[in-house]
């Protein structure tokens, strides 16, 4: 199964014509596939955008991996819009790429465009989150599980506090799948502990400024740190903003309020090393390698798992300084 050579037979051609076309293809096939081998792969990559530092490092990592392998990577930034991502995927199909990496901004709404890719026999690899479509429509997904991340954070917190804790939560952008799933995962674990409750939950829109502003209002509304035992932030940036808010209100993060968040961006390691954050769960940004491998494997006719899990570990302050040095 090689790239450019196979096109879906055109719907308006009669059956006899289709046969003729197939014959032509079968003659051309070895030639074209040989040339495709020589010219390496052309991969389209539809990225959500560059809304966070984590997203940028993911992009950089995938680009670097493609360059290392000598692939021609067609990169498209969708500026957080699903419609732009669909447009990009359709453009990749029109262009005739060998494979498509898609980091879907939302889980639903991909069936049609995935079907089109399938008709064009272009494998699609989902990056860093899944879609709610028939798994046969895509090759595989290389992603971590947001729910698991939320659950991991909750488990750590439960262990740390012996299942007794008033938690304030900083949600991600309202309606985003990372926010919804991390909350679901977190809630599913703490629901087992009757003495763990979320006393306040608001959206900090995944930003530092948002995290800081919301944390300030939490501290005011709860009358300082007395009634708050821990902060769960859906990403590190919000946690970093909230840490600033605590310090300014005279509250000591980690001492007065435990801080757990997700992503493992470099700055949170620095905060942990400085004793201002307790735990972070890594969201692995280096997804290019496994994704490209999957496309190659599929070309060779090998079977590929539908979910290549890329969940990261939970980091604690003990290794923070070393990790920070490594990642900076």
């Amino acid at each position: 199964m090689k790239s450019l050579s196979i096109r879906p037979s055109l719907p308006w051609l009669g059956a006899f014509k289709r046969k003729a076309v197939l014959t032509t293809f079968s003659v051309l096939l070895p030639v074209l596939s040989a040339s495709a081998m020589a010219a390496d792969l052309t991969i389209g990559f539809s990225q959500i955008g560059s809304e966070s530092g984590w997203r940028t490092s993911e992009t950089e990592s995938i680009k670097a991996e493609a360059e290392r392998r000598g692939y021609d990577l067609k990169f498209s930034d969708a500026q957080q819009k699903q419609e732009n991502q669909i447009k990009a995927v359709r453009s990749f199909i029109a262009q005739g790429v060998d494979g498509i990496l898609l980091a879907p901004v939302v889980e639903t709404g991909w069936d049609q465009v995935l079907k089109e890719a399938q008709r064009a026999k272009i494998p699609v690899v989902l990056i860093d989150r899944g879609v709610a479509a028939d798994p046969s429509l895509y090759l595989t997904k290389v992603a971590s599980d947001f729910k698991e991340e939320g659950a991991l954070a909750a488990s750590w917190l439960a262990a740390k506090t012996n299942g007794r804790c008033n938690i304030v939560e900083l949600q991600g952008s309202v309606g985003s799948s990372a926010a919804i799933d991390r909350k679901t995962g977190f809630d599913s674990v703490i629901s087992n502990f009757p003495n763990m409750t979320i006393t306040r939950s608001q959206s900090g829109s995944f930003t530092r400024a948002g995290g800081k502003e919301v944390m300030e209002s939490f501290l005011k509304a709860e009358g300082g740190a007395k009634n708050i035992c821990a902060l769960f932030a859906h990403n590190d940036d919000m946690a970093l903003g909230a840490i600033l808010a605590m310090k300014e209100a005279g509250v000591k993060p980690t001492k007065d309020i435990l801080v757990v968040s997700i992503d493992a961006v470099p700055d949170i390691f620095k905060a942990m090393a400085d004793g201002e954050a307790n735990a972070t769960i890594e969201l692995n940004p280096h997804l290019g390698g496994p994704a490209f491998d999957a496309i190659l494997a599929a070309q060779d006719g090998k079977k590929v798992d539908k979910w290549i899990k890329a969940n990261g570990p939970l980091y604690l302050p003990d290794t923070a300084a070393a990790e920070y040095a490594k990642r900076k």
Partner: protein
Amino acid sequence: MINERNLPILATLLVFILLYGFGMYEYKGFRDTLVFSNLLTDNAFLIITAIGMTFVILSGGIDLSVGSMIAFIGVLMAYLITSTGMHPLFAIGIALVVGVAFGAIMGVIIAFFEIQAFIVTLAGMFLFRGLAYLINLDAVPIDHPFITGLYDIYVPLPGRGGLTFIAMAMLVLLALGILLARRTRFGMSVYALGGDSHSAALLGVPVKKTIIKIYALSGFYSAMSGVIFAIYTGSAYPLAAVGVELDAIAAVVIGGTLLTGGVGYVFGTFLGGMIQGIIQTLITFDGSLNSWWTKLAVGGLLLFFILLQKGIVVWVKKRSAA
């Protein structure tokens, strides 16, 4: 003889042809009809929204609520279909009625309370997005066979391209928009209102009624766009179409309609939407721009385009004066 009023739209057409020609020259894949039919399909919801926006802008107003309306209508439709088991046709009907009603309410506030459209529709923008959140936070697939069936209707073109249902719906709504604008009293009232609202009132144009109708129409077109968007993605998502109002305004302005009102054509808006689509397609075909260069390129092309249009208009005016 080139009419002064047609000049901006001709400039737009010229730019569209130039950009398309550049793409064909530069990229092999661009020459396929698939690119053109993709342009029609992918930008359908934007163009539909922008057609409604054209009426608003022609009348001298603005409607910032369209993006949120698209998301709200989609979520409402999904709720009706998936949670109440309603047939999609009824759901679409209800969604359209709701869209028109909300548009009309904004029109009433603008017309009777004389609050500026920019602000009323800004509040509408917050409100509709908020209502979408209230119905459903999560993204919901709408996998009703009727909806997927609509998506699969397809008239093939030579080459790999084909006219999808979405593209055809857009073209029908475009034709409807053109007829409304140029061949009905309502359309003429819109132009009159944008040209000089004071005089329009004295000439017997029912100003308040027309304003309400305009925003109701914009509500209809953005609701229609919400429906099309739901068919396009087969799902509903409360965060869908963020910032589409700005894209729609840009499409209208690129299409040669004056933001001050009174002058412009619905067909120009179609071209404006297609030009924005082409810019995106060119950037994707190039594929080497990183995130920030993409933003710069979109901004730069917007600037280039506006200056070019301005230049063509000035040049022709000078020539015709000489």
